[in-house]
C-alpha cells in the first residue's frame, strides 16, 4: 500500500520546485508496472522510479492537464510504467496542505491505480543541504486522503537521495530541468529530462 521513491524521482521533484520558487508546481510520479498481482502485493511497497514535472504557475486549468495525463499515460504504456502518484508544491511557502485541485487530480489517478499517492512538498523545510525529506505523503483510503509521515523509509536509499539532490541543487541543475509547460512552449524541450537523469546516474 505504501510507496517508495528512488533518488531520481525525489531529485527531479525538488529541482522542479527549486526552479520556480515563486510559483506553484505540480507533476506526476511513475512506477514500474507490476507483472502479476500477487495475493500479498500490499506488503511490497510500490517503487516510484521517475518523476515527470508538469506545470508551474496557474495549475487549476483542465485542458493542458488532460493533454499531459493522456500523453504521459501513452508514454507509460510504451515503457511499461504506470502513473502512480501526483505531487504539488503550493505558491505560498507556508501552505503545504493539499487543496481541492490536488485531491481531484489524485482521485483521478487513483481511479486507474488504486495505490496512488498524493505528495505535497513542504517548502518551509526546503534547504540546499536536504538534510531531511520534505514531503508529506497522502494515501487514498475510502475516498479520503490520509496523511502519512515521510521519513527515510519512504526512499529506496535516503542517504544517496540526500547527497545527490543536494549536489544537483548546488550545481544549479534545476536551470536545465524541463517541465510540460516548457515542452508546450517549445516542443523540442524533452520532459523526460534525459540530461538530468544522466547526472543522477553519474553521481550514484
Amino acid at each position, binding site marked *: 500500500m505504501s510507496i517508495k521513491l528512488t533518488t531520481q524521482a525525489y531529485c527531479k521533484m525538488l529541482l522542479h520546485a527549486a526552479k520556480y520558487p515563486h510559483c506553484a508546481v505540480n507533476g506526476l510520479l511513475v512506477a514500474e508496472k507490476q507483472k502479476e498481482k500477487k495475493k500479498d502485493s500490499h506488503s511490497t511497497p510500490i517503487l516510484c522510479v521517475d518523476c515527470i514535472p508538469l506545470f508551474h504557475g496557474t495549475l*487549476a486549468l483542465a485542458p493542458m492537464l488532460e493533454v499531459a495525463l493522456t500523453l504521459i499515460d501513452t508514454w507509460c504504456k*510504451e515503457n511499461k510504467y504506470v502513473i502512480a502518484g501526483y505531487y504539488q508544491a503550493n505558491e*505560498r511557502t507556508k501552505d503545504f496542505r493539499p487543496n481541492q485541485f490536488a485531491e481531484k487530480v489524485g482521485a483521478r489517478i487513483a481511479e486507474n491505480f488504486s495505490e496512488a499517492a498524493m505528495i505535497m512538498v513542504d517548502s518551509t523545510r526546503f534547504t540546499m543541504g536536504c538534510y531531511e525529506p520534505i514531503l508529506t505523503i497522502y494515501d487514498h483510503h475510502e475516498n479520503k486522503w490520509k496523511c502519512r509521515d515521510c521519513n527515510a523509509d519512504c526512499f529506496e536509499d535516503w542517504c544517496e537521495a540526500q547527497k545527490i539532490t543536494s549536489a544537483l541543487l548546488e550545481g544549479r541543475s534545476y536551470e536545465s530541468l524541463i517541465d510540460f509547460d516548457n515542452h508546450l512552449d517549445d*516542443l523540442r524541450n524533452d520532459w*523526460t529530462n534525459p540530461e538530468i537523469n544522466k*547526472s543522477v546516474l553519474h*553521481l550514484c
Partner: protein
Amino acid sequence: MFDYCRACRLMVTCGDTTRCSKGSAETNHTQFNDVKPVLPRAMASVSEMYDVTWEEMRDKLRKWREDNHRNSEQIVDVGEELINEHASKLGDDIWIIYEQVMIAALDCSRDDLAWTCLQELKRQFPGSQRVKRLAGMRLEALEKYEDASKQYDSILQDDPTNTAARKRKISILKAQGKSAEAIRELNEYLEQFVGDQEAWHELSELYINEHDYGKAAFCLEELMMTNPHNHLYCEQYAEVKYTQGGLENLELSRKYFAQALKLNNRNMRALFGLYMSASHIAACPKVNATVKKANVKYAAWATNQINRAYQLAGRGTKENKCSVKAVEEMLESMQITMS
C-alpha cells in the same frame, strides 16, 4: 569527492577521465583541481565563464527588464558583477540597474545585496516614492508585513493615486493567504484604475485559484477587449471556459482556441486545446449529427497539425522520436473513443 565541470555543468567525481561534451574532443571535464582555488562566493566570474563584455551584460539586463523576466538568480549574478566591477562605465543606467538587481536580490534572499542597492538609491534619490516602495518590498521579503504596510500607507498619504503602493498592499494580502480580502481590494482598485492590465490579469489568476471560473473569464474578457491581438489572453480564456465545462462553454472554448491559433499559429496550447474541445463536443451524446460531423473534422485537422508540429520538432533528435510516437498513439487512441 565531486564537483561540476565548468564547461558542461555535469557533476563528475575527482579523477574522472570521461570526455566533456562541451569542450573539444580532446578535453576531459574541467575539474576543480584544474581551476585555481576561489573564494566561496566568487566562483568564476560571469564574464569569464560566458566570455561576455560588460556592454553585453548591461544589454542583457536591459532585455530582461523590458521583457519583465523573473530570472532572479541570473540577474543577481550578472548585475552584481556589473555593479562591483563596472559601475563607473554605466553612467545613469546604474540607478535602474540598482533597482532591478535589488528586486532580484530579494527574490534570492540576498538581503546583503538588496540592502547595498537600496542604500545607493536612497542616497541618490532622497525622499523618492519609488525608492520608498523598494524599501517596503524589502520589508515584505523579510516578512515584516505590518512595517511594509505602514511604509505603503505613508506613500499613499502623500500621493493617494500611487498605484504601485496600492498593488503592493494587495500583494501582502496574497502573501498572507488572505485571498478573499486580496480579491476584494483588487476589485476596488480596478473600479478606479480600469485600464491596469497587470491588475486584471492578477485578478483572473486569483479567481482561478479560488475555482471561480466565471469571474476569471470576465477578467480575461476585459483583457481581450483591450488587447484583441494578444493570442495568450485568447488561449487562457479558452482554457477557463473549457474548465468551466458544459456544452456551451466547450463550444466557446473551441472558438477561442481557434482564434488564438489564428493570431499565432505556433501556439501549441491553442492547438491541443482545439483538439480536446472539438473531440469532447463530438463525443457528447447531446449534439446533433451536423455539429458532431463538424467537430470531428476540426479534431482531425488539429490532429494533423499536432503531428506535423511534432515531426518538425523531432527532426534530428533521437530522444524526441519517443515524443512523436507517444503523441501519434495518444491521438489515435482518442479517435477511437470519439467515434
